[in-house]
């Protein structure tokens, strides 16, 4: 084939491939469903403007109050996790130390959010691909305490809560993560190896 014949041949092949392709009915709806559970894209801008612009805000207790409430609730299994507080600067740090419970390399970590006006709370993080459907919290009491426990590998994990399916918030009781993807707030929990002395549940 000479060059012109080659070009003609290519053009004819390409023409066969230029037909429009229709997407299935419901494509738009599926995308919007996924979009609605995402972080509002303007969030980081609003934050830089000097504070959250929110219409409703869950009432949040101080970190110690929240923990005291959670710990005091009858029947709330802490699953061997002992939550240790220490300050770093002016911010409480959150570390979860736990005895192993046959979970292999994982440690059960309990997450708590006090949000009395919320209708739903989900935990999202790097351990569940930030999937807002994967790890819902359950109401632990009528005081608006929500909780869930998840097994986490040792190391640093980023996470956040999604309230009522749309509002993304960092854990007020934990250190904030440096803004990474898309400028959204999230928190950090560091899971350490269990004490070598083999702490018993207190």
């Amino acid at each position: 084939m000479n060059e012109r014949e080659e070009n003609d041949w290519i053009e004819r092949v390409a023409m066969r491939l230029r037909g429009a392709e229709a997407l299935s009915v419901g494509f738009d709806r599926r995308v919007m469903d996924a979009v609605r559970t995402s972080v509002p894209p303007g969030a980081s801008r609003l934050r830089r403007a000097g504070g959250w612009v929110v219409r409703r805000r869950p009432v949040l207790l101080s970190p110690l109050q929240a923990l005291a409430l959670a710990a005091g609730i009858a029947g709330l299994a802490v699953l061997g996790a002992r939550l240790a507080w220490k300050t770093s600067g002016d911010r409480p740090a959150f570390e979860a130390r736990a005895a192993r419970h046959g979970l292999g390399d994982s440690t059960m970590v309990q997450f708590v959010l006090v949000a009395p006006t919320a209708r739903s709370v989900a935990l999202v993080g790097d351990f569940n691909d930030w999937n807002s459907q994967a790890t819902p919290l359950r109401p632990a009491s009528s005081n608006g305490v929500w909780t869930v426990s998840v097994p986490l590998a040792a190391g640093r994990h980023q996470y956040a809560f999604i309230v009522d399916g749309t509002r993304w918030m960092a854990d007020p009781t934990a250190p904030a993560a440096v803004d990474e993807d898309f400028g959204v707030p999230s928190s950090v929990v560091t899971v350490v190896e269990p004490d070598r002395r083999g702490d018993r549940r207190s």
Partner: protein
Amino acid sequence: MQDRSDAEIIGAILQGDVEAYGEIIARYRDRYARYAVRMLGNREEAEEALQGAFVRAYRALGKCTDPERFGAWFHQIVVNECRTYGRRRGNRERRFVDDEAAVASAAAESPDGDHAVRDAIERALARLEPEQREAFLLKHVEDLSYEQMAQLTGVGVSALKMRVKRACDRLREMLDGTHP
């Protein structure tokens, strides 16, 4: 009623009007459906990749520095998403017979059959290396200039030309005897 510009819609979304993104989806989904289907080989996966692209674009809307050029910015995301999706899929599923003879004979069986020719072309396309297929589609099916392709893919113009040439050579080898 005048349609809103992309910039106006994006402005509304950033002010909190989430539902306005539906207009963006309606505006752009058909434009890239063809590329995604040709690149990934089937509509189901193309839809997944496209959905992923729309969600990624939504989340990163605050980073779209020039809302007037949303289309070009989104196009990059689509190309990227198709690449990522294709890599993840890897060689797990061979959707077409891994046999060059079968590719050629599919067309030879009914040389006048439109269907068979189209089928043979799609099979050959699926057998190209992903970078070659991507370059071939962008150049010859989506009709972009090499400069536009360089912007979209982050690959240099001469590398792109080489990929397109190799793609064409490979297609001719595989489709020898086919009359498109």
